[in-house]
């Protein structure tokens, strides 16, 4: 017996695929235009003048939320890890395990996720509101490209400030872990720092910082694009903000996977495999 697929379903799949490809193409063009303006105009005073307020918005105002997140993650990791290490009588090595996790993975990823929520949401809401109130069109009719004027400074602020906030998050994570491990869980301070220094290498710190640049780029580009393409009215802006966070979050997780894989391959190629218990 031959089963026939309803034409409506085929049509729907075709339309959805078409829309997804069109959106991808549109986003690619948006990214290409942003990079073009970064190269041609990013160094001009006109752009730097616009970058400073954005740097304050993206960087300075995100410090408290990133600090709290980083510190508490370090503290929670200490509590969770110590139990397992005690079973094999290796609790003195807690510093190396937690701090490697913090600087390589959890610090950069959580700082980026917090920024996707706080900064990405705010950027999409701001640009989305400008879009629905015709302010983007007003820029265009005055001969000013909205990508150059609005996107480039926000994108650069995200790229420059995300690594700095990541370092801050890492630092607070390390302090939080040290505080709980040595003050409340009874790990001696000397071995704690000795094993931490042994476990963490410059490579791992740099891995976290470099990938945070890509996280920042993803947050800035996705947030601005969603704002530029949001639907009409308050509901359109609201939906764009939600989409912006979800898309940035997925982008961060996926980028993190590829960055981890790439960094590990390069590390193994250059230095071979190294155990934190070595």
């Amino acid at each position, binding site marked *: 017996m031959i089963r026939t697929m309803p034409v409506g379903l085929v049509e729907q799949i075709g339309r959805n695929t078409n829309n997804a490809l069109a959106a991808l193409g549109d986003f690619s063009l948006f990214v290409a235009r942003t990079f073009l303006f970064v190269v041609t105009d990013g160094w001009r005073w006109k752009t730097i003048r616009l970058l400073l307020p954005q740097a304050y918005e993206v960087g300075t105002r995100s410090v408290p939320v990133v600090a709290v997140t980083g510190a508490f993650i370090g503290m929670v990791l200490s509590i969770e890890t110590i139990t397992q290490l005690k079973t094999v009588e290796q609790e003195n090595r807690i510093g190396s395990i937690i701090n490697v996790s913090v600087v390589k993975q959890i610090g950069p990823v959580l700082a980026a996720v917090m920024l996707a929520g706080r900064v990405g949401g705010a950027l999409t809401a701001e640009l989305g509101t400008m879009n629905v109130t015709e302010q983007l*069109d007003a820029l265009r009719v005055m001969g*000013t*490209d909205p990508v150059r004027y609005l996107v480039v400074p926000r994108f650069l602020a995200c790229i420059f400030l995300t690594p700095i906030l990541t370092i801050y998050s890492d630092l607070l994570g390390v302090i939080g872990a040290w505080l709980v491990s040595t003050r409340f869980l009874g790990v001696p301070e000397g071995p704690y720092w000795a094993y931490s220094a042994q476990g963490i290498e410059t490579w791992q710190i740099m891995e976290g910082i470099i990938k945070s640049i890509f996280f920042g780029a993803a947050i800035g580009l996705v947030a601005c694009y969603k704002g530029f393409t949001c639907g009409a009215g308050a509901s359109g802006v609201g939906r764009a903000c939600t989409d912006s966070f979800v898309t940035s979050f997925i982008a961060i997780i996926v980028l993190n996977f590829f960055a981890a894989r790439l960094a590990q391959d390069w590390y193994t190629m250059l230095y071979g495999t190294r155990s934190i218990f070595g």
Partner: protein
Amino acid sequence: MPLIELRNLHKRFGRQIVLRGVNLQIEAGHVLVIIGASGSGKSVMLKHIVGLLKPDKGEVWFHDRRIDTLSERELQSVRTRFGFLFQMGALFDSINVLENVAFPLVEHSNKSREEIEAIAMEKLRLVGLPDIGRKMPAELSGGQRKRVALARAIALSPEVILYDEPTTGLDPIRSDVINELILKLQRELNVTSVVVTHDMNSAFKIADRIVMLHEGLLVFDGTVEQIKSCEDEVVKRFVTGEAGEADLAELRTTGREFRLTNQ
């Protein structure tokens, strides 16, 4: 030789066809008013003139140069020769009134800060609002917002000013102030004005020429006197503001008889 020309302009959004082959020539130095029902495509037509929308088919010409095929970057220099008054003003709400008016000058001139501020103040005086430069857009009334937006639109002394429903949402007195302002700018700056509106009082007061857009096509082109004496049913109903049987069909959903009050 027309200043602006639309040739066989077609535009659709999804399944909705908005323009079905509009041909229009706009002469320099006059006030052209485009009338038509809400949703008839008047604003869409206006946005094609300045390249904010690209036609699906057809051409847009400005000063003997085809502009609908230009890239965004190429369009930037063309757009500085236009001023555009948006329906809700579209003022930048994060900067004050003076900075809004000064914005095009900051972006497109090499003048000093003092010179730019002086020009912005002069433009604000021209629209009758010399004392509100330090206010934020959110503190302005609807009429003030439109006048500030107009001051911004003329900051670069454009050749053409495009008005998208300049009197919508204003009371009759404020509407008349805007009408007088359009005429004043026309006299003092000697510009070409294209005004989209469905306010017939405004159209009669400011127009040198009126065109009417209906179902994606221009159905009338003439002077104020000609439109007042036009016998075409669609044009006549629009000018007198009378709803027709077709307009009221959607109200007949309750099953009770519904008649026009003037019949």
